[in-house]
């Protein structure tokens, strides 16, 4: 195999980057976007097909999202005419939910013109955009609705009154919204709004002619409970009554297969799906439970859920959060900025708690990532305006994934990290190396990184320096392929530097980060080269002052509910002891680790924000005092966001029980059909348990912040190691309406 490393730092002249108008300043481009462009979008189903639209998550400066969406960019340069043709911003930024007038984060769909505008540092757009990340891209521009806010219909009847249960939002995949656990005794649905962020309708593209400009959602399909073609109507259509049945069966017996088929919901064909289980744990209830909350659910697009690297996630999550808040306000009858006013409603202050059971591994782990900051902003501003709001996430299941390594490098010292990339994997493998925060002692940490392929090759090593992007191509002739087809690895040494956003009085340092990637090792049989599998070696050489670097291998496993797509890559470390003498997995790092791999600091990289509620997974022991972290539960500590600061997060805030016992894995929750139940575990399950607890707390008018969540703990963590994995301790909350799985023998049960 002939390999060659090439410098692709400068965008000019490279047709791949030119096609998308990426600006020459590497530092401003999301490194994952950069890499996707270089490889011709290898991890996307339609590969190198030219994309018209990109989903973007944008952080603004000098101008709020509301102003920006309304075309008032507050910039000295003129706002480019016709910008709405290449940047579509959903209506809920121009007309934000209550309390969110002053946010600086937004999502949009953009074309390559967006990037071209950024070429000019004095352009109006350059003056507004601080940083951005990209998400999954719908490839049909005509599926997107225009950015102008839709004219408001007459205010609908209020569906939430003060005193009603807290509204629960769920963002997940595979949500069987017609399950009886989400319906009331009269058969109506508690799911007031359901946004399926999909692109395709059924097996084919959505009929564009039926798409209205003033659609209620920027893409995908929305189903309301009460709309003419909404959930309740579909429930009735799929019931026995519609087919002429009579008697008690008519209303109750539901053909769920038919209902989901008619709604083009193929995501719930399997008997168990993550989103349905999570939603049941968070807000499922028996139909006759009068305290059951109303639900707003968002179903992520399939490619986003399937890609567990998570770099497509932030855009869709933020959109989902905005959607949930917007709809919650409407349910409360809130006053709309330009719409008709409901005279009976002054300021409903609708309380909302959102469950987000998603996680990744690699990231700064200090709360500075895009999604974390965007979520912190939402929570801060919404609660400051008097609207109770909380987002609950899981702390991660990656303690034993061997995905974190740390190395201390003295002057000119070298170290090698061994990266075991599995064979025949359909997805790319990523590693993020994070350099420490600049400090007085080490004002500019700097290293050189070489990525060595596990094959004998010519020009197999290239030391990549700060600010450079290199790609490794297979030079064997492969006629007919595009330049991206030959790329099997990349190294992108991203410099970030100081950021300031004076309007929100925050400043923080990005830390330098090196993104390494290895293309899929699966042979696709086409024009695309596959990367060699085996142990890649990452050679790190210190060219600055002594410092400690951390490396995380990004998650890339098979998510639950999808066809298995192989095992993830991990670090190889001979000094890492996997099992103890009797075969249990070792769950703590040795006092003096001899190798680089660590179990500590493996928290969900999306869950180290300052305001999000983060919970770990505990395993119940028959004797209550024996409750302990689940064996896979990730560990803190996080990292500090300010120079010379302390980490804001040492671990999760608390840990609900996500495993009923050592032999009874998981917690019982709904399968996708109303007669089924399935047991799933992980912090994905701990999060909705905490969501349920937080909703109860919030409904009493109490704060729903991190101290409040920690205050719900019943069994306190005793050891520091446990503190970093279960926070203050264990919360034993059971889902009502479910049978006691282990029977009534435990002495603590009455």
């Amino acid at each position, binding site marked *: 195999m002939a390999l060659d490393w090439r410098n692709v730092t400068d965008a000019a002249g490279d047709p791949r980057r030119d096609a998308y108008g990426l600006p020459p300043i590497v530092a401003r481009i999301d490194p994952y976007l950069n890499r996707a462009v270089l490889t011709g979008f290898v991890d996307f189903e339609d590969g190198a097909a030219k994309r018209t639209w990109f989903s973007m998550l944008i952080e603004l400066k000098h101008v709020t999202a509301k102003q920006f969406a309304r075309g008032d960019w507050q910039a000295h340069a003129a706002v480019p005419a016709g910008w709405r043709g290449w940047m579509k911003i959903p209506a809920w930024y121009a007309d934000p939910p209550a309390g969110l007038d002053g946010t600086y984060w937004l999502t949009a769909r953009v074309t390559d013109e967006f990037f071209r505008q950024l070429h000019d540092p004095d352009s109006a757009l350059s003056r507004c955009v601080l940083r951005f990340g990209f998400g999954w891209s719908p490839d049909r521009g005509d599926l997107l609705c225009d950015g102008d806010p839709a004219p408001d219909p007459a205010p609908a009847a209020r569906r939430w009154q003060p005193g009603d249960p807290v509204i629960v939002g769920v963002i997940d995949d595979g949500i069987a919204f017609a399950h009886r656990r989400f319906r009331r005794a009269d058969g109506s649905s508690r799911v007031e709004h359901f946004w399926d962020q999909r692109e395709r309708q059924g097996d084919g593209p959505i009929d564009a002619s039926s798409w209205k400009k003033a659609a209620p959602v920027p893409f995908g399909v929305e189903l309301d409970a009460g709309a003419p073609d909404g959930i309740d109507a579909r429930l009735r259509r799929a019931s026995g009554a519609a087919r002429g049945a009579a008697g008690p069966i008519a209303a109750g017996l539901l053909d769920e297969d038919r209902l989901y088929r008619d709604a083009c919901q193929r995501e719930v064909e399997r008997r168990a799906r993550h989103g349905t289980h999570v939603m049941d744990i968070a807000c499922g209830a028996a139909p006759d439970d009068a305290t059951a909350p109303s639900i707003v659910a968002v179903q992520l697009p399939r490619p986003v859920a399937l890609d567990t690297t998570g770099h497509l996630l932030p855009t869709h999550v933020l959109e989902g959060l905005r959607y949930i808040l917007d709809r919650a306000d409407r349910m409360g009858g809130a006053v709309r900025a330009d719409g008709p006013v409901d005279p009976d409603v002054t300021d409903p202050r609708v309380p909302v708690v959102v469950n987000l059971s998603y996680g990744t591994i690699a990231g700064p782990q200090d709360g500075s990532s895009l999604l974390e900051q965007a979520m912190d902003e939402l929570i801060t501003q919404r609660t400051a305006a008097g609207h109770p709001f909380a987002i609950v996430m899981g702390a991660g299941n990656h303690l034993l994934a061997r995905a974190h390594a740390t190395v201390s490098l003295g002057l000119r010292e070298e170290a090698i990290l061994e990266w075991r990339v599995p064979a025949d994997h359909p997805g790319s493998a990523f590693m993020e190396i994070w350099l420490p925060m600049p400090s007085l002692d080490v004002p500019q940490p700097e290293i050189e990184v070489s990525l060595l392929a596990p094959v004998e090759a010519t020009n197999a090593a290239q030391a990549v320096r700060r600010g450079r992007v290199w790609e490794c191509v297979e030079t064997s002739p492969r006629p007919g392929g595009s330049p991206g087809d030959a790329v099997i690895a990349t190294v992108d040494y991203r410099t970030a530097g100081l950021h300031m956003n004076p309007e929100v009085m925050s400043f923080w340092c990005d830390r330098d980060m090196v993104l390494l990637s290895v293309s899929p090792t699966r042979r696709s049989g086409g024009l695309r080269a596959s990367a060699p599998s085996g142990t890649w070696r990452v050679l790190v050489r210190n060219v600055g002052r002594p410092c400690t670097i951390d490396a995380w291998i990004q998650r890339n496993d098979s998510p639950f509910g999808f066809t298995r797509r192989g095992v993830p890559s991990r670090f190889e470390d001979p000094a890492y002891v996997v099992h103890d003498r009797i075969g249990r997995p070792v769950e703590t790092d040795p006092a003096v680790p001899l190798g680089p791999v660590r179990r500590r600091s493996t928290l969900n990289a999306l869950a180290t924000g300052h305001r999000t509620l983060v919970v770990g997974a505990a395993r119940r022991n028959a004797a209550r005092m024996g409750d302990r972290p689940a064996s896979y539960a990730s560990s803190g500590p996080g990292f500090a966001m300010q120079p010379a600061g302390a980490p804001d997060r040492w671990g999760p805030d608390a840990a609900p029980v996500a495993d009923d016992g050592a032999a*009874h894995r998981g917690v*019982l929750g709904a399968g996708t059909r109303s007669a089924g139940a*399935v*047991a799933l575990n992980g912090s994905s399950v701990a999060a909705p348990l905490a969501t349920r607890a937080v909703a109860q707390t919030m409904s009493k008018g109490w704060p729903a912040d991190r101290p409040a969540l920690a205050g719900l703990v019943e069994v306190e963590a005793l050891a520091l190691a446990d503190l970093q994995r279960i926070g203050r301790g264990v919360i034993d909350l059971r889902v009502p309406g479910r049978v006691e799985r282990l029977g009534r*023998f435990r002495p603590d049960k009455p």
Partner: protein
Amino acid sequence: MSGVSGVSGVSGVSGVSGVSGVSGVSGVSGVSGVSGVAAGALGGGAPLDALIRHREAIAGPWLGVTSGANELPPDKAEHLRRSPPDIRAWALDQEVLSSLRVTYDGSGAAGNPARHACVVWHAEVVPPSTEATVAKLVEIVRPPFATFQAQLKRVEEYADLREDRALEIASQVGPQAAYWETVLNLRPWQHPRTLELALLTLRIANAVAQRTKLILACRRPVELSAQIQPMMPTPGHGALPSGHANEAFAVATVLGALASNAGANASSANPGATMMPMLYRQAARIATNRTIAGLHFPVDHAAGQVLGLSIAEYLLARCGAAPGNGLATWTFDGIAYPADLEHEYDRQFDATQSARLAPGAADLPAYVKGEALGVAVPPSPLLQWLWAAAKAEWTA
């Protein structure tokens, strides 16, 4: 004569001879023709033809009665040891069942025309005397149909656990020897009489329960909804009382009485002991598993528990292991059973969860009543023999 074949496996007493560790003997199979095979007492057996030729060859001229055997004394319990366990089981069963009668009482109490009860009696007549000793052991009052309809919701809820419990349920269809073994450290070669007594308990309990089910004629969950879809075929006999609960609680009580005073196992007289609570928890779980499988309502097990505990106490009295005048009449009142109640097995036991609450105890639930029996139940020599042999297996 064929070996004792179990009734169909679904009823829970299958293959009495199947617990082969006890005797290592399968029933004597029918023999036809010279070429037929007779299974010898030690297994393996020699072909008929071989035995005929063998005698012809070695017997020699006839010399008359030459063994030193004398006449056996009649009616001795120890003659039981001359037969293998599955053959003497017939005699033992006949001994016990001949004093047990099961009748229907539709007379109602306090003028409730809907009160249907089944009564189990100790009814002993020892001919040629025509005097009968009659004592009411258990009365099971059938719950109203509305209770079963309300209980169906519980069956549906428990279906969530089918996947969890599937292997257990499948392995608990027949005698749950593996489960008794795991609690008591039973070894077939060390405790053959114990296992024999346990199987006797199962058979007696089953016979009484089958007769009771026939009288009470209670519908099964599968008959009340086509959505229950049990995970194995529903037996044809009635739901209440539950056969599994009846047998499991009966066996637990008998094994517990045997294993007490053994050096290796804690005795039920020891308040901190775990043996009886474990045995009863096991019985409760065996019963609940039948609800999970979709075959029973929880109320069936509450009634089965009352019946099983009583049958065990009766058997122990007949074995001479407990005083014959210490029994009580126990009533399960299905009319007083709360319609949505699960099987709260622990409510029938004392604080140590090792023994049944005394008759008349204030803690008894409203649907269980006990009254001391004024009649003494005499022991049976046959059962005393078996009991003594089993008990001897438990000395340290």
